[in-house]
């Protein structure tokens, strides 16, 4: 199973990025091979619709689970169409959160925000 997570840096110690759509990178973790792959988020520089494009990247990488602190409604629509489940990250690094998810300690993200769309956040 592949797990996707927005991250600030391309290192194993990286923290989780607070933005899904405009995160610089995604960490794609394969639970079978225990391989971690970093993917550039080409949506980060988009004028608009970043969440949609970022979600497309996650879908194309065939992730089955997304760990993120928050997610906008447009991105969530794409992610849910691909039957990817979204879990809310807690404290700690990206790897801490992946381990927490594998231990069943993360809960599904149920607050989908309506997007910040040039209004900060």
């Amino acid at each position: 199973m592949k797990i996707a997570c927005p991250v600030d840096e391309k290192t194993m110690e990286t923290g989780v990025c607070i933005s899904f759509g405009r995160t610089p990178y995604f960490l794609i973790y394969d639970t079978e091979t225990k391989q971690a792959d970093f993917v550039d988020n080409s949506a980060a520089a988009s004028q608009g619709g970043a969440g949609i494009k970022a979600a497309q990247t996650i879908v194309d990488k065939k992730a089955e689970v997304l760990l993120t602190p928050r997610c906008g409604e447009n991105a969530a629509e794409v992610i849910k169409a691909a039957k990817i489940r979204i879990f809310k990250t807690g404290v700690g690094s990206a790897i801490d959160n992946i381990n927490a998810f594998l231990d069943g300690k993360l809960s599904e993200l149920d607050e989908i925000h309506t997007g910040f769309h040039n209004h900060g956040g």
Partner: protein
Amino acid sequence: MKIAVLSGKGGTGKTLVSVNLACAAKSSIYIDCDVEEPNGHLFFKPTNIKEEQIKVKIPFADNALCTGCRQCVDFCKFNALAYAGGQLKVFENICHSCGGCVLVCPENALAEKERIVGMTHKGDSGNVTVYTGFLNTGEPSGIPIIKKMIGENNQKRASLTFIDCPPGSACIVMENIKDADYCILVAEPTLFGVHNLKMVYELVKLFDKPHGVILNKCQDSENPSEKFCVEQRIEIIGRIAYDYELGTLNSNAEIAVRSSEKYKTIFSSLLQNVMREARHGTTINPKR
């Protein structure tokens, strides 16, 4: 002659200036492009209103023909398309109706449908033909409505048109001024007013438009906007006093030029200044 009236923030007097200048002219066209909250019609109270719905084209996919190649998804600069779970998703509020996705689809799986984003009213108020644009609540962009109203009047070079712009200096204001022959910047006598004046001043310079400033709400005290104009050598085409009578007329949705001889004289002379500057501006920039 098309004259755009703009300011960096709301409430500086764009509508006051454009409505009264339009009324002071022998005959004119007034276009309210502040489509999120048009208010010029409250003053004009136009009659014989012709309503027109404004539609944009939005793509939709025939999922039986779509092979999931994603050429449309990659093409869309606005990220209005996504392919997930074996289906193409169209985000209608993000689409800018460029039609590019339909052109690039190799399977002819995309077609366009119409979506209503707002409406325009065209009516008469004495010597003024009044256009008002209304954007539907929740719609992200009023540009299609503005394009329609300005486009409809673009051929009429001979007539005098006043464009009452939305506040600020964003894309929607650029759409308003790009075909204008002259821009009037309305400014308040405060430091905040100067900041907002700078924003629109930079915009009209970027667009290389002839322009001048009307200082509104002038009092006896120091006027930071006037100081800015003098420093930057921006033409001051008029001053409107911070006046109880004008405030009262305006609050009662009356047009000062039509209700007060004093203001008829003031705005007629302001209009003469504007026309002289605008003609001068277009003479030294003949391409406009």
